[in-house]
């Protein structure tokens, strides 16, 4: 154990360190004690790395095809990194951490960072896309049929290959039966002798043209949508694949004045880059806006808007009570039952366990709805069973207790299972030793079982606290934050910060993701601080056993 050839490895890494490779004189189960790489290990390594390489090559082709060189570079670096990591003898902790971390970065860290970055924007309904998107949306939604114009029957045709040839609209005037061919150059009439027209008015054959069927035409959908045939009154556009109409975009963007003009009313809306919308002189805004950076505006609104910051403290206190209560109660009940059932003389523990975990096996959103119904003041089971007349969700404290009770029911099976697993893992010799010493069951529980349970479970309790701190479903599916004071519909007695945020962000005229992200960052900062402090206390416990 003393000689280490892998020099760079810090000596503090003792337990997990790569074992010494120079032949130790000790007897080993392994015959090739001079080479700790076993055949099985090698084969597994070869197969897994081969898979990695295979997947990387598979993934590379579409990237090359799409010309996404940055993506390709990331792929190559990641793959090379994996190869290096598992072929070198160094960086042992990384060998264990990297597989999960890769997924974590791609599917959790990236979304979180992306979301956090929206806190500095006005991202939300009406401001989701770019300015160009908004301009396209404004123009297309202003296309109107020219009054009194004709509705044509339409066939899509081409003079060339049906899959690639330039497209032509063959349109039939329903009144005259005249057929015209139209493309970007305009409309020109076709000789009636050269075309065959079906009774519905659609051209089914024309000399020199190939008529596209629906399948062929829909494969070229974007081209059809973009083909505009200029006419004196406006332009002929397709409406689906069998009709065409003469339409005109009433509103158009003018890059010169950076504004949108309405050709019917003459009104103009000028772009306002600060709010991401087109605004008219009279203050009217066009509905379609775009996403812009607003700096710390969202943050200052959280701090200064009395509607947001006012109830913040009260909600925060209840939020802590809820998270601590949910975690603590479920843990106590789960552990108590686990202890009660943890005895070699107990018969039927299997059956008990199956029935006890049922609440956890049922979809929780369904059971939350069932519980909400059970707390109904007139029709609910709780009142009728106990002969009560409590308006459970109508009073602040009864609603809070009810919510905690529901959390207890939903969550204690989890704690029960975990505590059962933990109890099984405690060596019996330890507890037996204390009972031989004449300690009472309570003393031995307090001095041996509980500390060991807490070592195993305290990280979990912190995690559970963090989860419950943001447990939106528990509130949203039962009280929805209520009861509310009659004069304040924005903040209820059982509101958590997260439900409060949710209401603020999505209750307005369209969702405000940027605002929601901002409040989330505030909440995040609070929980993170609390968790970090309690986490630092686990260090002492951890060090006792490691």
């Amino acid at each position: 154990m003393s000689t280490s050839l892998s020099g760079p490895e810090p000596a503090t890494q003792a337990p997990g360190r790569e074992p010494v490779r120079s032949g130790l004189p000790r007897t080993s189960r392994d015959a090739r004690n001079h080479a700790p790489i076993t055949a099985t290990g090698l084969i597994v390594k070869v197969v897994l790395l081969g898979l990695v390489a295979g997947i990387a090559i598979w993934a590379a082709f579409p990237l090359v095809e799409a010309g996404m060189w940055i993506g390709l570079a990331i792929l190559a670096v990641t793959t090379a990194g994996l190869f290096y990591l598992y072929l070198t003898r160094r960086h042992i902790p990384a060998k264990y951490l990297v597989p999960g971390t890769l997924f974590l970065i791609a599917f959790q860290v990236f979304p979180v960072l992306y979301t956090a970055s929206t806190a500095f924007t006005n991202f939300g309904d009406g401001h989701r896309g770019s300015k160009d998107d908004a301009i396209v949306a404004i123009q297309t939604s202003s296309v109107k049929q020219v009054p009194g114009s004709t509705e044509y029957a339409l066939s899509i045709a081409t003079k060339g290959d049906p899959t690639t040839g330039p497209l032509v609209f063959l349109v039939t005037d329903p009144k005259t039966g005249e057929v015209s061919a139209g493309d970007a150059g305009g409309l020109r009439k076709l000789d009636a002798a050269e075309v065959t027209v079906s009774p519905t008015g659609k051209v089914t054959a024309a000399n020199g043209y190939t008529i596209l069927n629906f399948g062929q035409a829909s494969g070229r959908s974007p081209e059809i949508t973009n083909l505009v045939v200029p006419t004196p009154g406006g332009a002929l556009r397709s409406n689906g694949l069998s009709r065409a109409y003469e339409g005109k975009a009433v509103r158009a963007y003018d890059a010169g004045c950076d504004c949108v003009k309405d050709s019917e009313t003459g009104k103009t809306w000028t772009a306002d880059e600060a709010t991401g919308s087109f605004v008219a002189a009279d203050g009217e805004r066009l509905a379609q806006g775009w996403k812009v950076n607003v700096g710390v505006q969202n943050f200052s609104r959280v701090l200064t808007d009395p509607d947001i910051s006012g109830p913040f403290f009260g909600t925060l206190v209840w939020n802590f009570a809820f998270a601590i209560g949910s975690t603590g109660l479920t843990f106590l009940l789960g552990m108590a039952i686990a202890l009660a059932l943890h005895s070699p003389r107990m018969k039927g523990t299997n059956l008990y366990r199956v029935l006890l975990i049922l609440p956890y096996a049922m979809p929780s959103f369904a059971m939350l709805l069932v519980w909400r119904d059970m707390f109904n003041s007139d029709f609910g089971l709780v009142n009728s069973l106990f002969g009560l007349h409590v308006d459970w969700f109508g009073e602040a404290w009864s609603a809070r207790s009810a919510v905690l009770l529901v959390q207890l029911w939903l969550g204690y099976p989890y704690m029960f299972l975990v505590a059962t697993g933990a109890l099984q893992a405690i060596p019996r010799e330890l507890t037996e030793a204390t009972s031989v010493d004449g300690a009472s069951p309570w003393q031995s529980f307090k001095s041996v079982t509980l500390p060991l349970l807490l070592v195993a479970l305290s990280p979990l309790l912190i995690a559970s606290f963090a989860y419950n701190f943001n447990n939106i479903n528990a509130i949203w599916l039962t009280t929805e934050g209520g009861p509310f004071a009659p004069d304040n519909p924005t903040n209820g007695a059982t509101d958590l910060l997260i439900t409060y945020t949710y209401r603020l962000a999505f209750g307005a005229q369209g969702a405000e993701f940027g605002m929601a992200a901002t409040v989330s960052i505030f909440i995040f900062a609070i929980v993170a601080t609390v968790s970090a402090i309690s986490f630092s206390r686990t260090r002492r416990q951890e060090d006792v056993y490691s």
Partner: protein
Amino acid sequence: MTTYADAPVANRNATGKARSRWFAQVGWRHLVGVLAVAFSVFPILFVLSAALNPLGTLSSTELLPTGASVENFTNLFSRTAFVHWFLNSLLLAGVASFVSIFLSALAAYAFSRMRFVGRRVGLLTLLLIQMFPQFLAIVAIFLIFTTVTDLWPAIGFNTPWGLFLLYMGGALGANTWLMKGFFDTLPKELDESATMDGATHAQVFFRIMLPLVAPILAVTGLLAFIGSINEFIIANVFLTNTESKTLAVGMFGLVAGERNNNFGMFAAGTLLTAIPTVLVFQLLQRYIVSGLTAGAVKG
């Protein structure tokens, strides 16, 4: 609860005394068990009575079924893609829980047994990331998977593999914390002596550590299985094809109608959903029960 040693001692002279002794040692445990089961099960009776009620409403003050009809169950199979949902969920939850437990155990081993720069920061980061509200991340998930679907349709939207990858993003969540806690309780001498014997770190992990934490692997496995079966927020945006849905998404659709719903069928489906969970629990039960002691003796 620690007096196992003298448990077999029986006092045959006084049966009354024996009975009270029985109660003191075992009987009260049954009492606690029965009370706990009653607390657990009675809301579920509600669901059962809704499942058996042909009108399938969620609301009644009666706990016991008012009518008995299997109509809701037969409708579930004839009118919905329930079988598809069921199989999708089993496949997804099975594979996802297995792989995520493996990834978690790897990380937990490193966090518990090795000392490296950034260890505690890493642990804390794992915890903090879980705290960001998921409903806000949906936009980013669309962003990622729109590109993925364009490039690699095999792992894009509406495929179980894409969803599987997403779930793996959460593999290092609470489970790593839970397992690290258990690794911490294992005596260090076990792996140290194995290392002295010339075992590699991989051998220590696979041959010594993993068998010893079998109970917690079983528990976290079950929790991960239940978690994936019930996961809804992400699966709902990810799976839109009727036949590629999971149970949670498909069944939510039964009650998601705007102003009317189908609670009877939903309740029936909910009960059926619990079956795989209970079976998995049965399967893992012996690992949960076998415990460390047996393993420690062997090791």
